[in-house]
């Protein structure tokens, strides 16, 4: 084992692969962080829509969730890559395709987590809030969502971790993330063991800090 291959290519692996600074379009963080933020925002709307009383809000949201949960992520990425440019008659950049595919796909899962989280809050909470004269929107914002979000943390973080690791799938359309960067280096150096062990450690360090932070957050948000 000779880890000098990692040391020699550390700039490319970390700056290009992990962070996205370099000559290629890429970066695991540059894809994962906006995908998590935007996917979660879309997921909140989808989760709320799933609980709407009006059928023409609730049913499309349900179809959306069932559909995107039922197809593979790789296929969704391919669609955005091949089909959307055909339909729109414009070429789409890799970054735009990858980010859109992840946001659209993950929002389905996150929407289900949000829905379950809201439903986990006892019905009496909403009844109490509305009885004191809060509007339905104020009830959701000040009473239901704060409790729901706390209950959602474990499931949310699991999904964020899955998403973070799944960004390696963006390499199939030429997006140079950490996995693709290791592959590029390996094609030149033929040091698969060292390179793939190194990126495994990098992925693990990132996801482990996410789960540690989640545990801290959960504790901090536990009242009393």
């Amino acid at each position: 084992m000779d880890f000098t291959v990692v040391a020699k290519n550390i700039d490319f692996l970390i700056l290009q692969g992990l962070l996205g600074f370099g000559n290629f379009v890429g970066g695991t963080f540059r894809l994962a962080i906006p995908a998590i933020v935007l996917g979660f925002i879309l997921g909140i709307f989808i989760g709320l829509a799933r609980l709407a009383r009006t059928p023409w809000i609730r049913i499309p949201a349900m179809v959306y969730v069932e559909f995107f949960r039922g197809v593979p992520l790789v296929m969704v990425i391919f669609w955005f890559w091949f089909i959307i440019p055909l339909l729109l008659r414009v070429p789409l950049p890799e970054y735009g395709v990858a980010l859109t595919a992840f946001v659209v796909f993950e929002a389905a899962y996150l929407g289900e987590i949000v829905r379950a989280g809201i439903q986990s809050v006892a019905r009496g909470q909403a009844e109490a809030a509305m009885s004191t004269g809060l509007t339905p929107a104020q009830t959701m914002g000040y009473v239901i969502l704060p409790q729901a979000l706390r209950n959602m943390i474990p499931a949310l973080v699991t999904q964020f971790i899955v998403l973070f690791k799944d960004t390696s799938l963006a390499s199939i359309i030429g997006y140079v993330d950490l996995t693709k960067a290791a592959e590029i280096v390996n094609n030149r150096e033929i040091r698969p063991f060292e390179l793939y062990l190194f990126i495994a450690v990098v992925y693990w360090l990132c996801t482990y800090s996410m789960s540690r932070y989640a545990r801290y957050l959960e504790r901090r948000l536990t009242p009393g």
Partner: protein
Amino acid sequence: MIEFQSVNKWYGSLHVLRGINLRIEKGEVVVVCGPSGSGKSTLIRCINRLEPIQSGEILIDGKRLSDPSLDLTALRAEIGFVFQQFNLYPHLSAMENIVLAPMKARKISRPEAEEIATRLLERVGIPDKAASYPANLSGGQQQRVAIARALAMQPKIMLFDEPTSALDPEMINEVLEVMSDLAGEGMTMAVVTHEMGFARRVAHRILFMDEGQIIEEGSPQTFFENPSSPRTKQFLSKILSH
């Protein structure tokens, strides 16, 4: 102040309120009792439309609850509701529980809302619990915070749905005392309860419900000493025998 006009309610095929007619006047304290499943909780939950009704009409201060232009949120702000399970917000301190609605629904400033809340916590006997979270309060303390939360909106009507049923026996009196004081101050109250001692001392009128109907209605004295319906006698003998 509150008027039911031949109100009917079904849960699916279950007919839970059967042609209820009822008037509660301003300043009146009405206790509703009856066996479980008789519709008494449903009855008071209909007053602030936590439960919809299928036929008939409920009027609050002359306003029809079925009126599509009714501002339900504003109406609910005028009606305090106290639940069996307290339903305090577990993520907020006692103080925050109380000031939330005055600040958000009435747009009262925080210092002013906190002043009101402090006074109310004193009134319900727990001025030192402002910073406590519901999880760190006893059942009786939680219910008193819940009463303070409802009172913070300065309601015209207070509704109580079995407020002491989830409490340990030694905590029941501290809650009943707060309710008696409130009644003494002239609050219009409708109380679903099994506390017959409270009913006898505080109520102006007692309703006895069974199978979705009000089958007995009268002053505490007539209710306890001279009930007309055999069903009421049977109920009273069961709950007063020990």
